[in-house]
């Protein structure tokens, strides 16, 4: 099952790259650099999926005390950090030729960076506790708090930006969506989700076997 998922993910990624580079048109304003979006946006969507699963796993564990929920949270947390990191790096690389700078404190990047730090802390906490039950409980609390905090972070950063940058920079996300671009984006998003599912499945299996050993 996991193996099938893996191959499906590979297929999806191949199709996605073809869509992003071959099928999708060259964007009018930014040129070919805009193609990074087919990596950047699916990455952040996958990260949000991951953190949603961390929340689910956290609540699930506290409610039922079944280790499977904690395994879900642990695996999803790891993947969330991975994909958030990809989001930030790809966003930064996209920003350099587009905005002229590697980093800017715009709302999206800042929120994503904060998200990254919250969940790196989550993984750090997990790595420092040996007792599986305590680890699961503490991680669950942090997982719940971190997830619930996401909208709060979003609004605070957005309003903070409005203070400091009344003139809106035309961010990459602002281009009107050409249907071809939209389709390429969708295909890549599906591919990323498949890849995520594959990694999640393998990572959870590892956790399950480790507990038994």
């Amino acid at each position, binding site marked *: 099952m996991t193996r099938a998922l893996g191959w499906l993910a590979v297929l999806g990624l191949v199709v996605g790259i073809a869509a992003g580079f071959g099928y999708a048109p060259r964007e009018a304003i930014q040129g070919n650099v805009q193609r990074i979006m087919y990596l950047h946006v699916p990455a952040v969507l996958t990260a949000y999926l991951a953190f949603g699963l961390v929340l689910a796993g956290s609540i699930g564990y506290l409610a039922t005390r079944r280790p499977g929920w904690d395994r879900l949270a642990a695996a999803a947390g790891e993947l969330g950090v991975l994909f958030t990191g990809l989001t930030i790096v790809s966003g930064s690389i996209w920003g350099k030729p587009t905005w002229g700078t590697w980093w800017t404190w715009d709302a999206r990047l800042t929120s994503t960076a904060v998200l990254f730090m919250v969940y790196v802390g989550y993984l*750090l906490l997990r790595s420092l506790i040996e007792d599986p039950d*305590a680890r699961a409980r503490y991680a669950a609390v*942090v997982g*719940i*708090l*971190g997830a619930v905090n996401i909208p709060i972070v979003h609004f605070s*950063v957005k309003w*903070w930006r409005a203070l400091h940058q009344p003139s809106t920079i035309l961010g990459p996300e602002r281009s009107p969506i050409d249907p071809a671009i939209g389709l390429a984006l969708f295909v890549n998003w599906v591919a990323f989700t498949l890849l995520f599912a594959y990694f999640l499945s393998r990572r959870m299996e590892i956790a399950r076997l480790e507990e038994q050993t």
Partner: protein
Amino acid sequence: MTYARRAWIILWKDLLIERRAKEHANALLFFCLLLLFLFQFALGPDRERLAAAVPGLLWLGFILAGLLGLGRSFLGERDNDCWEGLRLTPGDKSAIYLGKLAGNCVLMTAVEIILVILFGVFYNVDLWTPAAPLALVLALGTIGLAAVGTLFAAMTTQVRARELLFPVLLLPVQVPVLLATVSATQALLLGQPLADVAHWLKLLAGADLVYVTIGLLTFEFVLEG
């Protein structure tokens, strides 16, 4: 014994210990003084640059003091083998959280009052005119900081590398509180009316509600084991 009474006992115990030992208060007071000098030296002699940075520095000071003070919330219980005592407390454990939270709010408020006075004196900033709205922002920010800080302090007390893990966990979660309080403080110090910062106050109030609720609901899970 009622819920409220249990919470009150925790608060009273901590205040009493503090009053007798005075270790926290003295050290934190001195720390605040040090921060003042630190900020001044870091920003240089330019008066205006310092004045412009005051809202951020003020909250930076609270947070740094908070990291020190809050992180130690449960150290007394841990060092004196009282952790079991907490665990065996009958009834709803969240009463302990509430008591600890109240104690931390008292501590943080004391630190803030001192810092505000020191800022006013040493940096020659007028913090008296906007005192009332500023106090509101301070109160809301304090609750947010203490709510999560108390919860994480309980968690990290038993963990290796506690001194590192506590700030690493707390600070990212507190970003919204920091952004809101600094923005609101800045606006208030510039003489803007309270109505202008209403959205920040609502954000803070909402965040505080969320944090305290989660603290109350999850504290028993932290206390186990």
